[in-house]
């Protein structure tokens, strides 16, 4: 198409010609290549933007405090990604193993299911009966047992008499018995 017949680039096309020329339609690209007016407009835009960058660069003060590197440059030895993945994998595996071993109900430390239920019941009963036997022998709490441990057998008699007086020594019972005899 003749350059004179082809419409000039519009504002939008002109901007795209500057940003991304390859993105323009073929006809517009061909026109731009041939039309001095459009090329001139694009060139002016380029010059304005170049002037902006140039003048900005000139308007910056001189760098007075130069970059100072420490004598020992030690880049941080950050561990690589695979290391963290391996560490995470190991941690998850360890958690799984622990949960398999200890998980209530299904853990490996729980007795196997092959043992008959009656056998387990029997064991529980025995434990329970053992506890009852202990209580029957001495139902005092351990604290009192500890206190009484310090007393010998003679003293313990007196101690028990002191805690639980006999009917004769009981003051109330004694008064009651005396009154009965007087009457």
């Amino acid at each position, binding site marked *: 198409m003749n350059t004179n017949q082809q419409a000039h680039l519009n*504002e939008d096309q002109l*901007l*795209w010609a*500057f*940003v*991304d020329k390859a*993105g323009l339609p073929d006809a517009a690209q061909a026109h731009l290549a041939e039309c001095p007016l459009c090329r001139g407009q694009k060139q002016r*835009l380029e*010059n*304005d*933007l170049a*002037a*902006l*960058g*140039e*003048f*900005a*660069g*000139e*308007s*910056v*003060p*001189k*760098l*007075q*405090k*130069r*970059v*100072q*590197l*420490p*004598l*020992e*440059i*030690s*880049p*941080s*030895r*950050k561990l690589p990604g695979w290391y963290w993945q391996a560490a995470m994998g190991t941690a998850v595996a360890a958690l799984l193993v622990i949960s398999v071993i200890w998980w209530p109900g299904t853990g490996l430390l729980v007795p196997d299911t092959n043992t008959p239920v009656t056998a387990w019941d029997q064991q529980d009963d025995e434990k329970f009966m053992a506890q009852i036997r202990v209580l029957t022998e001495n139902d005092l709490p351990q604290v009192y047992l500890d206190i009484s441990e310090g007393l010998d057998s003679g003293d313990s008699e007196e101690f028990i008499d002191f805690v639980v007086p006999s009917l004769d020594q009981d003051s109330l019972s004694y008064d009651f018995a005396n009154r009965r005899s007087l009457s």
Partner: protein
Amino acid sequence: MSKIETVPLNSDQGATSDRVTDTVSEIAGWVQNAKRGSRHACNRLVEQFQEKIFRMVFYRIRSRSDAEDLTQEIFLQAFKSLPRLKNEERFKSWLFSIAINRIRDYYRKKKLRSFFMTSIESEESVGRTPRQEDDGGTGALQRVIRKDFWQQVGILLDKMPRMEREVFTLRFMDQLSIREVSQALKKNESTVKTHLYRGIQKFRKEASMRNFLQEVIS
């Protein structure tokens, strides 16, 4: 306190071999050596980029002393994180992305400080015009022109959303290629082009800015 070594600003102050280069492969070689702990390679990288980074920071915060401090921090962080850079050829855009993050941190801290202060400063209002001692000019006329320039730039950039402003600044003031901008901002190229298109559209509408530039350049 650790001992420090100053890196020369440019080839005038450094050795003849310590020239600034634009060859990506050469820079990639320095990056590889710097990763292995080569001090010489680190110095070359600093020499290559310290002024670019300083300018980049100054465009955004408009304070020389703060920009110098941030430039120092950016390089230290870059060398510390260098082993994480997989593609050595992307060092420039990677360094710019570190700088962008540091500037964001700087503004976050500034906002936090301003929250506890009576005068409220924000990213939009802080550092739009450089301080008198930071405007880079010597004569009074130059100072006025530069002040006017930064005001015009501020007016233009204020009309752009944050990402558009960042793309526009990286492309036309920091002179990064579209690919480098996309790498620095971790956006795809078509997104960058769209932001760029909108930014240029706004620039075209700022007749006063364009007239000012044409006057100054001519």
